[in-house]
């Protein structure tokens, strides 16, 4: 044996054959326990409904691997935890690969093919890398312990807003125990690994191949020096090594066996969940298949396998809990707890050999694991949870599927039921006559084309609030005037337009959504136009992302990008810069849903405004509370409303003059919240359209343009 081949990892040296055999038996037992656990989990997912995945397998795999490696989703809005997780992930992964490589040579390549590579320089470099990986692992674990034990971020508090103290599943102490057990287990595996290495060095200090290369394992070498310092000799080192070897080996095998049964499984389920991620999960909800007898989800088995996998991917990191506007104002909803409840439910019902009776699979209700109506109706479908989830859990489609069942049963607020019936009857949520949809045009000094009668360049889909709400009608008229002044050839559908259905769909009334989408696609089909514009982000989202499933594909934009282009082309010019100190509220359906972050900001800059961002802006924008049909459901009296919470955030900006919005519902919600929070008179709420008008005072008398 050459000198370099002697430099290798000491494995079973000095072990009696019986102990080696015992170790292999235990190793296979751990693998068997792991395999059985995986089988039970896969069987659970297969008990779900089929799921259609968009996009190809390879791009999804590539995207998943990239996210796992770059940890981008893990460090968002919590860089410290993300960094610590990165240390743990890379440390653990390298150590795992290292151990796997040993097995590869020792148990496979060498006995079968006589191939050896685990020696010499390769071994030494690897030894150094693994030693550093261990440092990373332990450093990451220690930070996580400090975080859980001392920093205690509120998002890690498992107390539930949808349960009361005293309920059996109120704050789930078993979760805390599991979190700590996981951290301690990994820490002990890592720490004993080092002590084991040091003991081995002390034991074999007489062997030059071992002792002379010890600094390739710097932590082990340092510890060895310390052990020698306290008087440990080769014989003591040997005994310590033997004992620790078994201790380290047994907990490592135990860890492997426990993976599918504990939160450790997230290492696989999170990867799976990332891989099946739907980038339009909240923007484009699924249709109800023709073959499905009852709409929505009643039983846990009505969820798709992908959704069941989503449930298992959750790591309880609490980012959705933190981001949820309903939770922030004390509503009985935390997206985290919806997911965890359903996961507990799936665990209790779908992991046994035989499926329980159908009655025991109902996920609606107030028992542990079930989701209450009040919880589901608290959701604004604002997508904050989906957007921030590091492991691609898609809460919104899950909640809407549950709501579809509630709608079918009529289990909803009577006012909401009334509004839905009104929309069915009149095509709008205001209960106004269809023919009054275009009535706002009568106040204009020029006619607005009926796009069904003559071709137009730009078809303006106006939407309910912009058409019927008196305050928003003023904005609508102003926008029409701006378009006319810029010489845009535009028209509207008049009574051919119906409520776009975005919020009806998110309420869970899919049948009504189908009626509305079909009606609008037919109306749009009867018109000749080049592109669609709307001032309403809700209409924008559903027409852009959901109408294609109903045969309607149109180039559509929000008014902010159209105005920006008109300014860039010189068709609109700022004649009176505003110099206001403004803040901007990103509408959920424009920002998070469709990444329309820049155009509104650029418009505000063009107008000469000084933009001061709120802490929660862009992708972290805080919902006004109107989404998901909540605008039709009265908020409980007394409590804070999301819009009030938001206005208070804006009010903290020194010298704020204007709270700028770009969504009709935002205008309604925030003007109301401005009054109810007592901030009236301190600053004003304005549509960007109104600010544009202010910066471009009418030069010519009304009606003078073409």
């Amino acid at each position, binding site marked *: 044996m050459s000198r370099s081949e002697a430099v290798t990892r000491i494995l079973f040296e000095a072990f009696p054959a019986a102990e080696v055999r015992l170790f292999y038996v235990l190793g296979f037992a751990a693998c068997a326990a792991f395999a059985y656990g995986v089988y039970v989990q896969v069987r659970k997912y297969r008990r779900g409904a089929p799921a259609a995945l968009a996009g190809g397998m390879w791009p999804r795999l590539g995207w998943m691997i990239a996210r796992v490696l770059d940890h981008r989703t893990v460090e968002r809005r919590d860089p410290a935890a993300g960094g610590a997780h990165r240390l743990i992930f890379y440390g653990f992964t390298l150590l795992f690969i290292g151990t796997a490589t040993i097995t590869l040579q020792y148990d496979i390549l060498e006995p079968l093919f006589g191939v050896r590579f685990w020696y010499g320089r390769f071994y030494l470099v690897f030894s150094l890398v693994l030693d550093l990986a261990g440092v990373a692992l332990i450093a990451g674990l220690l930070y996580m312990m400090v975080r859980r034990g001392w920093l205690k971020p509120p998002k890690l508090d498992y107390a539930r807003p949808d349960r009361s103290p005293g309920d059996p599943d109120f704050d789930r102490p078993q979760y805390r125990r599991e979190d700590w057990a996981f951290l301690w287990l990994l820490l002990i595996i890592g720490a004993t690994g080092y002590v084991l290495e040091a003991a081995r060095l002390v034991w074999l200090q007489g062997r030059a191949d071992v002792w002379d290369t010890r600094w390739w394992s710097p932590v082990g070498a340092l510890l060895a020096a310390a052990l020698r310092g306290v008087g440990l000799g080769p014989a003591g080192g040997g005994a310590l090594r033997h004992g620790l070897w078994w201790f380290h080996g047994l907990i490592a095998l135990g860890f492997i066996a426990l993976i599918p049964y504990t939160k450790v499984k997230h290492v696989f389920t999170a990867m799976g969940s990332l891989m099946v991620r739907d980038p339009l999960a909240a923007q484009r909800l699924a249709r109800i298949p023709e073959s499905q007898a009852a*709409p929505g989800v009643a039983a846990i088995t009505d969820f798709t396998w992908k959704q069941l996998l989503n449930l298992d991917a959750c790591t309880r990191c609490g980012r959705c809990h933190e981001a949820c506007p309903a939770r922030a104002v004390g509503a009985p909803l935390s997206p985290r707890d919806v997911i965890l409840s359903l996961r507990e439910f799936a665990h209790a019902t779908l992991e046994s050999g035989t499926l329980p009776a159908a009655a025991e699979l109902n996920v609606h209700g107030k028992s542990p694991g079930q989701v209450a109506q009040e919880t589901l109706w608290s959701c604004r479908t604002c997508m904050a949870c989906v957007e921030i989830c590091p492991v691609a859990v898609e809460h919104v489609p899950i909640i809407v599927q549950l709501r579809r069942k509630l*709608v*079918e049963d009529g289990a909803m607020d009577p006012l909401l039921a009334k509004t839905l*019936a009104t929309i069915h009857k009149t095509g709008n949520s205001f209960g106004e*006559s269809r*023919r009054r949809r275009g009535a706002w045009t009568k106040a204009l000094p020029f006619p607005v084309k009926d796009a069904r009668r003559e071709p137009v360049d730009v078809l303006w889909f106006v939407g309910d609030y912009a058409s019927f709400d008196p305050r928003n009608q003023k904005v609508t008229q102003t926008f029409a005037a701006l378009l006319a002044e810029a010489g845009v050839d535009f028209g509207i559908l008049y009574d051919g337009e119906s409520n776009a259905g975005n919020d009806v769909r998110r309420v869970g*009334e899919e*049948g009504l959504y189908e*009626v509305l989408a079909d009606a609008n696609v037919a109306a749009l089909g009867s018109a000749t136009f080049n592109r669609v514009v709307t001032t309403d982000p809700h209409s924008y989202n559903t027409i852009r992302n959901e109408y294609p499933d109903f045969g309607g594909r149109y180039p559509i934009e929000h008014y902010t990008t159209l105005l920006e282009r008109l300014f860039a082309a010189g068709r609109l010019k700022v004649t009176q810069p505003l110099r206001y100190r403004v803040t901007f509220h990103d509408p959920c359906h424009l920002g998070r849903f469709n990444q329309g972050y820049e155009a509104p900001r650029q418009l505000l800059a063009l107008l000469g405004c000084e933009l001061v961002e709120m802490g929660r802006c862009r992708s972290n924008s805080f919902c006004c509370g109107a989404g998901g049909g909540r605008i039709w459901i009265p908020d409980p009296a007394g409590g804070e409303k999301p819009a009030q919470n938001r206005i208070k955030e804006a009010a903290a900006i020194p010298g704020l003059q204007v709270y700028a919005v770009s969504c009709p519902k935002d205008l309604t919600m925030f003007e109301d919240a401005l009054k109810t929070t007592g901030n009236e008179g301190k600053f004003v709420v304005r549509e960007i359209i109104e600010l544009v008008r202010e910066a471009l005072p009418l030069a010519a008398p009304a009606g003078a343009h073409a």
Partner: protein
Amino acid sequence: MKILVAVKQVAALEEDFEFRADGRDVDGDFLVMDLNEWDDYSLEEAVKIKEACGGAVEIVAVSVGPPTVDEALRKCLAKGADRAVRIWDEAMRGSDSIAVARILAAAARAEAPDLLFAGVQSSDQAVAATGIATAGFLGWPHAAVVSQFTYTPGAATAVLRRELEGGLLHELEIRTPAVLTIQLGINTPRYASLRSIKQAAAKPIELRTLADLSLNAAEAGSSARVRRMYVPDKGRAELIEGSAAEQAKRLAAIIRESTGAA
């Protein structure tokens, strides 16, 4: 056990409307048709009885009207009616409450229900006679403006409360078969999802003619007819402000104006 629920498709006015050329009704283009609000409650009351006893109850929605009424009947099917019956003959066009009651009574004899529910009134005509007149033609016990109802299928009597003026309630026991007119608020009508309405579209609506009910055209027709429908001239009100002298001056001007002495 069978419950017959008499329903009506009512018309709601749009904000701007025009009268028909003959001046006897609003032009149909300006009307939005829907199930009468009271009927929503009476149907719900029937469905609740059915649900409470586990289903051995047949609910039949019945309406008198042209084919457009099918939409209202489908809504009833969507909300839980087992069958829907529409009775129509051109002779019934424009019939008043009493004629409709005579037709409904004939239908009730054919169906032989244990209970007949009707709304207290219809929101468009507001005669509030159809239900009780039907009881009259049938010679059945009846109660109007029922705000609470308790009945176990198969029982010979039912207990109910009805609203009286001045906040008083009447509690009575009534023999079945009986006719009840149901008041708003007796329950919370369920929402009929669009999906259930679409599914109801596949269910048949049974059509009955005069002959089916052994009625003649005279019995089905109205004994009263609408001569005209119109918007009355609006009165005027004005708050006169200012000093006593100014008020007197304005008052004098108004008097001169209204007597044509200006």
